[in-house]
């Protein structure tokens, strides 16, 4: 079967992306693609530039250069609010739950950027805890519930591409499993997901492909089905 027929339509195309925080040059030419409906991870050690890549796609780093094309639109010159309006939603590593808003207000905060977002009922069906605790202050939730809130609120917006930055960080194994289920559910619903992970064992349970990041560059690309054959390489990259 020809390879091209298997490859999904390209949704996000990153080419030679550089990013800076003040004087420090963090990304040194990231290049990768995410196809429509795929779950793709960025793997790498702490400080490799994974989170910065997410922020650079979202337009919230100090300075960025190169090319980030989303659905054929070049976004490198756009402000972060314009980028979000194209249909990209971001779930930050620190979760970004607002202390002065209750759970429901947190959930309703991101504006709908496109039609076809999930309804509150659908989100509550995936995350029943959010319904029970909708009048609680956002930051009074447990870590796992906060993560679910951070993911849940971007599902309402109708965004097609979700950037999830280490959604499993610091969570108990049973919650990590739940988050894994959620990501697989989202994939079946047609969402495209770019995931940052340090834990490749978790990444392997949800993703189609993996890019290995080091020193602000992509240094390797591994299909999920090729992971068992490439264990030694991965161990070396990730230092586990």
């Amino acid at each position: 079967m020809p390879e091209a027929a298997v490859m999904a339509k390209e949704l996000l195309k990153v080419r030679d992306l550089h990013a800076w925080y003040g004087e420090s040059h963090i990304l040194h030419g990231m290049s990768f693609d995410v196809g429509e409906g795929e779950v793709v991870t960025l793997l790498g050690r702490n400080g490799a530039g994974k989170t910065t890549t997410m922020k650079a796609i979202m337009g919230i780093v100090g300075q960025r250069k190169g090319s980030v094309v989303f659905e054929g639109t070049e976004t490198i010159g756009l402000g972060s609010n314009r980028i979000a309006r194209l249909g990209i939603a971001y779930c930050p590593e620190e979760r970004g739950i607002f202390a002065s808003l209750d759970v429901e207000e947190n959930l309703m905060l991101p504006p709908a950027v496109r039609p076809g977002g999930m309804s509150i009922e659908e989100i509550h069906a995936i995350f029943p805890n959010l319904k029970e605790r909708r009048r609680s202050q956002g930051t009074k939730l447990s870590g796992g519930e906060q993560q679910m809130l951070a993911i849940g609120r971007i599902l309402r917006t109708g965004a097609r591409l979700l950037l999830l930055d280490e959604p499993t960080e610091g969570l108990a194994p049973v919650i990590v499993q739940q988050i894994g289920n959620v990501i697989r559910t989202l994939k079946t619903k047609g969402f495209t997901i770019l995931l940052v992970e340090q834990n490749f064992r978790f990444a392997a349970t949800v993703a189609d492909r993996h890019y290995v990041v080091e020193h602000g560059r992509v240094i390797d690309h591994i299909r999920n089905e090729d992971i068992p054959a490439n264990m030694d390489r991965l161990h070396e990259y990730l230092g586990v």
Partner: protein
Amino acid sequence: MFELLGIPPQALFGQLLIGLINGAFYAMLSLGLAVIFGLLNIINFTHGAQYMMGAFVAWFLLNSALGLNYWWALLIAPIVVGITGIVIERLLLKRIYKLDHLYGLLLTFGLALVIEGLFRNYYGSTGLPYSIPPQLAGGHNLGFMFLPNYRAWVIVFSLAVCLGTWFVIERTSLGATLRAATENPTLVQAFGINVPRLITVTYGFGVGLAALAGVLAAPIYQVSPLMGSQIIIVVFAVVVIGGMGSIMGAIVSGFGLGVIEGLTKVFYPEASNTVIFVIMAIVLLVRPAGLFGRAR
């Protein structure tokens, strides 16, 4: 006829009323300051001048060829002065958000001096009269005191404006966006919200509140270029006591301190000019973030 600690009730209630009136102005002005500080992180020292501009716009409207009365002024002055605030924000303030607080202080304080100087140059420092609208002239004898209608109106109206503002900020989705942008503007913008525009509109609104207070004040105090700088020092003390950026704190401490100031005039007149500052010093010692403030 009863007396309290040797104070006749007329004097007590009279001062209580004056305290409530002052408190109404403290509350409206510190509310605007709190809203602006929350989102812009700038202490708007121009606030007193913008309050004064509100009173002057009312005076201009009445004395212009249009002859627009008090009720029109209540509507038009906040809009006109709010627009000048938006121009100031777009031209000047937006350039200093990333700098130290000190620059915001210098810029807004300097602007206040320029605006006051301009008005004093043209109108001198003696006040211009602005009479009470005829619909609110006169008053009622409540038995224990005489309540002028206009003063009752000021208290009720400013309370309504304060509570309305509180409701919008604490109970609506627009307010939720505002609170979220106060906490983490970068993330709110990354959700697709135009935060710079939100900041501009918020500053315009806070300035409009000051101008509205200025219109309310015009028939009570005289319309004078100095009216802003006389009240604003106390208002800053009120904001510090209530807690920088706290909406309810600004309202409660505004009215509360007005009343305390009024009562001090009855029981210990010598301290009436300093009592608010003494309270401020005590609050800063005990709760540096203010009575309703969250430590940042």
